[in-house]
């Protein structure tokens, strides 16, 4: 497996979002966020207006990976569920096979049983949907790679446009003098 990319199609997300919406109704959760194990956002439902989902995805993936090492030290392959309890909000994180993670934010701690129960049900459906993939043909976007590269390269030059190289020359001179 050499540096593949993960591809998520709209048809998949449509189906997954349906399961996640259903989950939110059943559990009265605030929001649900689906992320890859590498910490990339796949989709989110419910109220995520107060959450920096990019940062959350990176941190959850990191903490889950660290927990896997803890599991390993205890002779377990991994822990499939993490529950973090706050004062007002709580987070339930469950692993979806080797593909993704489902992060549920909920407020009423009394609902934790429901969250756990329905998270298991939703996990199975979402995993199936992720595994079977989307309708690639209808989703295929004709993007010229050369164009993409050109745009991206220009943007990178714009973002990092300072007199960096001139400064390198200066350092070399200073180093030689020393």
């Amino acid at each position, binding site marked *: 497996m050499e540096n593949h990319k993960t591809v998520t199609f709209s048809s998949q997300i449509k189906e997954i979002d349906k399961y996640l919406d259903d989950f939110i109704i059943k559990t009265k959760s605030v929001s649900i966020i689906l992320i890859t*194990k590498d910490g990339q956002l796949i989709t989110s439902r419910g109220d995520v207006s107060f959450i920096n989902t990019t940062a959350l995805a990176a941190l959850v993936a990191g903490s889950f*990976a660290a927990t896997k090492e803890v599991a390993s030290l205890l002779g377990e392959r991994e822990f499939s569920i993490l529950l973090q309890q706050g004062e007002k909000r709580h987070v339930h994180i469950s692993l979806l096979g080797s593909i993704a993670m489902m992060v549920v934010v909920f407020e009423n701690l009394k609902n934790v049983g429901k969250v756990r129960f329905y998270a298991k049900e939703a996990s199975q459906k979402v995993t199936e949907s992720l595994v079977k993939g989307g309708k690639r043909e209808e989703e295929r976007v004709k993007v010229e790679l050369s164009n993409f590269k050109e745009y991206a390269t220009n*943007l990178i030059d714009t*973002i990092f446009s300072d007199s960096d190289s001139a400064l390198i020359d200066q350092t070399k001179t200073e180093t030689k003098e020393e």
Partner: protein
Amino acid sequence: MASLNYALREINFKIVYYGPGLGGKTTNLEYIYQSISPSYKGKMISLMTEQERTLFFDFLPLELGKIKGFTTRVHLYTVPGQEYYEASRKLILKGADGVVFIVDSQKHRLNENVNSYNELLLRLKEYQLDVDTLPCVVQYNKRDLSDINPVCQLEETINIHKKPSFEAVAIKGIGVFATIKVICKSVIEKFELNV
């Protein structure tokens, strides 16, 4: 690994800054964070110890903007450099699209640089990533200090895969942008959109 999300119209890349402890990985990210326009950056997260050493990772999402209708992001991570955080380094490296290896140019750090690079090779192998084809850039940091190894020696000892390399003084921002520009471009070059 790069992720392409048609529903969200997003493309995300992951670049990991690797290298021995106190080599300047976090300093690179901090300089980037402080120097680029707010519209291109997200929130930087640093998980540090009380001594301000990286405990788990630093994370900085860069927003390149919309390219061909896709919001394109580059997620920058650093690993904790100290030897005893090997498990963390392994985890963070997972799914990397590119690696920046930060070398501490000081003479007394040579062995640590070599050990860290060898560890990186081992981890890449475990993730079945081919170092010859994986976008990678080497940065020789701390070039302003007096007791440093010459670049030609570092090239021979550490940059054995002949990756693009840059001299840097990350704390002053020298060489930081040159490094990230090349790694970003290499990663994007490798990315194939015709899935």
